[in-house]
């Protein structure tokens, strides 16, 4: 019993990273209608920045959140206006998708050039600190990741529900053309949601730096995991995306424990496909959300 609880706890903590990444994907998908495949690479990039500022200047990763988040937001705005501004206005969304693929490999190789191929990680003085409740042992840093994920979901949710800009983003994800005729600049709305998506990649990057070791190729795998989380949760729902991430983490840990580590990916992609076949709207999406042709 104790071990099952431990597995669930580990799964939730692993999944919180997927959750943050999936929320970012969901926001970007809402307005630009593409799966932003470079999201994982952006996360890895910000993990490297966190690592770098820790190595060079001794800045604690959690302190660097205050610089990484605004920086990521600005990077997001810059990338949008440089790369996606024209493509996002096209009816054919494949152009944006291909741009994202190009961006992914470009940044992958940029990271390789700057930091080399050796896996990196941040070793903090408190990395070993563990929270013990009965039989359950949880490293504090992983626990903090869950906090980051919950806080990210809550902030994005409040932004969408309570702010005027957030209302415009929600409207744009329902019907972009009608939104522009209500006086909303479609380029601006896409840019804002894209920048927030990249800011979330910044949050996830800091989280990744504190817990994982990472290298330049890790981004694509991570983007696919985020995509799986998003599909499990149902696109267009902040807490669904987070829950999808947590669920994916639990599935991976259960598979590792009960079937074997080699089966992790088989199990998680198997569940991913089963969900898409039987519940295309995701586990937490409303039924009938996905229209039939």
């Amino acid at each position: 019993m104790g071990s099952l609880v431990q597995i669930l706890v580990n799964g939730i903590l692993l999944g919180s990273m997927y959750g943050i990444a999936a929320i970012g994907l969901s926001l970007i998908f809402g307005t630009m209608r593409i799966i932003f495949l470079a999201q994982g690479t952006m996360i890895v990039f910000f993990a490297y920045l966190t690592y770098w500022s820790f190595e060079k200047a001794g800045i604690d990763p959690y302190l660097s959140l205050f610089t990484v988040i605004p920086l990521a937001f600005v990077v997001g705005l810059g990338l949008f206006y440089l790369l996606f501004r024209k493509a996002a206005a096209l009816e054919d969304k494949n152009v944006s998708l291909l741009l994202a693929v190009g961006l992914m490999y470009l940044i992958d190789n940029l990271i390789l050039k700057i930091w080399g191929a050796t896996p990196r990680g941040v070793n903090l003085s408190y990395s070993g600190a563990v929270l013990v409740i009965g039989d359950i042992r949880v490293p504090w840093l992983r626990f903090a990741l869950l906090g980051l994920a919950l806080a990210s979901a809550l902030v994005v949710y409040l932004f969408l529900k309570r702010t005027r800009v957030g209302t415009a983003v929600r409207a744009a994800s329902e019907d972009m053309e009608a939104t522009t005729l209500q006086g909303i600049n479609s380029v601006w709305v896409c840019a804002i949601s894209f920048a927030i998506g990249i800011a979330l990649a910044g949050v996830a990057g800091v989280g990744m730096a504190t817990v994982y070791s990472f290298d330049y190729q890790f981004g694509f795998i991570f983007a696919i995991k985020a995509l799986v989380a998003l599909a499990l949760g149902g696109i267009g729902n902040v807490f669904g995306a987070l829950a999808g991430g947590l669920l994916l983490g639990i599935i991976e840990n259960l598979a590792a424990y009960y079937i074997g580590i080699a089966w992790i990916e088989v199990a998680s992609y198997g569940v991913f496909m089963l969900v898409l076949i039987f519940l295309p709207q995701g586990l937490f999406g409303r039924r009938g959300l996905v229209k039939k042709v």
Partner: protein
Amino acid sequence: MAAGAPLLTLSGVSKHFGGLQVINDLDFVVHESETVGLIGPNGAGKSTVFNLITSIYQPDRGSITFKGTEITGLAPHKICHMGLSRTYQLVRAFLKMSVMENVMMAAVYGVKHHEQGPKQRAAEALELVEMSHKRDVNAAHLTLSDRRLLEIAMGLSSMPSLILLDEPMAGLTEVEIQHLLEVIGTTRDERNFSILWIEHKVDAVLDFCDRVGVIDYGVKIADGCPDDVACDAKVIEAYLGEPVA
């Protein structure tokens, strides 16, 4: 009602899709404080005219001016800021949001620098269409007729000088149509905006409008006061077919 200066002017506007000439050399004017109907059989190009005015499509030739400014090719949101709003035949209010959220959004973004704050404009617009008591209802739970009223309120909240109505009566019952006409009539008298009204149902437009234009196969075949247009031989032919004899 006495019409003022020209507000919206289309001159020589043409648009084709592939080999199909949808709009052909169209000249059309809407004056200040004027209610104009634009009628025509199915497929005559009525909705295309709206999409050209709101810059969803770009015309192949011709120019469109609003308040004396060329708006051909201007971004749709800028045209909205200039005081032109529209409704859709298939309502496109945002169904996942509440009535008030819809109207607030239109009020906040629809116009720049207005002396009245968006909250006040949104509340007034809901008041005008008699929807205040449904402000917290989700748009997805409204009847078709209420959704139409909601779209009109969204338009009103940006204080437009011209509202484009795209078949607002389609799919409504007689009672609902009466209510809609009353609401549109009283708000128009209070706010004194112009209306360009596309309609398939000819009789309502003839009763309600100061002037009526008729298009068929993208060509304007009549333009004048409702009584004259109703008796025009070309118009009758467009709707009923060529006379047998």
